[in-house]
């Protein structure tokens, strides 16, 4: 819902003008970033509030818990993509020169968003703070991913450069974020 509101707001405020590829790529990723901040920050807070953390800690190993949360978040963001990206295309009249690569960029980008945000969400839940802390902590960690995703999305819209290196970059970010999270998660989870 948050995503659709933002998307409609963006579409209204540009007033049907056809946007530059640079600009609309940046807008797409801003929408996805803030939506995932709003949605994913709840991932672990819910468990803390409902008091189910202890049971979960007894029942499963930390990496199992992390992978479960991560997969759930990835699924959540993918279904968000299914909603937002077609609407984005319809409302902002954006032509896409490389549709298949665009799909890959969106999927790899959102998977990366989910990976790093899951880890930050675990930290935020333990910190016992609500609201803006999630965005403050996640932004610097996600910035390389966002910049990379924006520039490769622009390439997909225009289709003027080779995309393979960009896809490799996004893939590597995913790998590093996931490995680091798996190594660090037990320190956050166990007390």
């Amino acid at each position, binding site marked *: 819902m948050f995503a659709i509101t933002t998307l409609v707001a963006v579409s209204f405020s540009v007033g049907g003008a056809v946007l530059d590829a640079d600009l609309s790529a940046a807008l797409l990723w801003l929408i996805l970033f803030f939506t995932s901040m709003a949605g994913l920050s709840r991932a672990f807070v819910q468990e803390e509030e409902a008091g189910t953390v202890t049971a979960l800690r007894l029942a499963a190993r930390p990496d199992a818990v992390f992978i479960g949360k991560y997969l759930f978040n990835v699924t959540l963001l993918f279904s968000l993509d299914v909603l937002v990206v077609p609407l984005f295309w319809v409302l902002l009249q954006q032509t896409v020169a490389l549709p298949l690569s665009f799909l890959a960029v969106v999927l790899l980008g959102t998977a990366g968003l989910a990976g*790093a945000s899951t*880890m*930050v969400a675990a*930290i935020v839940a*333990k*910190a*016992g*703070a609500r609201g803006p*802390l999630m965005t*403050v*902590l996640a*932004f*610097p*960690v*996600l*910035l*390389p*991913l966002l*910049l*990379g995703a924006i*520039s490769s999305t622009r390439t997909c819209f225009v289709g003027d450069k080779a995309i393979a*290196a960009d896809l490799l*970059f996004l893939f*590597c*970010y995913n790998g*590093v*974020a996931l490995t*680091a*999270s798996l190594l*660090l998660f037990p*320190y*956050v989870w166990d*007390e």
Partner: protein
Amino acid sequence: MFWQILLGIWMTAVILASFLYMPATQGLGQTGRIIVYHVPAAWLAVLAYLISMLNAVGYLRRGELRLDRQARINAELGTVFCLVATVTGAIWSRAAWGWYWNWDPRQTSIAVLLLIYTAYFVLRSAVSDQARRARLSAVYSVLAFLTVPFLVFVVPRVYASLHPDLINLEQGSFDMDRKMLVVFLASLAGFTGLYAWMYKLVARLENLLDKLEQQKRGEAESER
């Protein structure tokens, strides 16, 4: 005491030399003198952040609060030097490139560094329990440290940098006048000494505060 006085004289000499002894640089002109302050500050910021991150890893492995304190003090000092580097860089950028800030890759990466450590301090202030604060902030600093190098790959692909390079990679040599090199190295040594002294002062202050706290607690217990 001896070392502090020596450091004071040393830094005064460096400041005088940077204006009087050192020649104006080729290409950059008079603005090139800022190299004596800007580069050592940036180098120390990186050094202090690196030490902070290593201490965070050490804390996660051994769980000693002493290491967490070292990580925090180094992060604070690193931020001080990082601010100095950012501000001197912005002033130089006004003179050399026309405006204080224009998102040159170097400016982007230093801004991200500042963002990370701001977030680090926000996280620390949000948690009240000591051990938990130490663990969470250590995890965050390692996570940030691992993802940031990606910026080094993205940013140059998108924007070209205008930042002057100290080390000429093609010739494998320092692009510096002899006199300038002497002043620069002296300044680097002086700044590093300054950092060591600042670190010692803060660590001593914190230890004294700890002792004071313990003493108060002891008195309160004996009264009871």
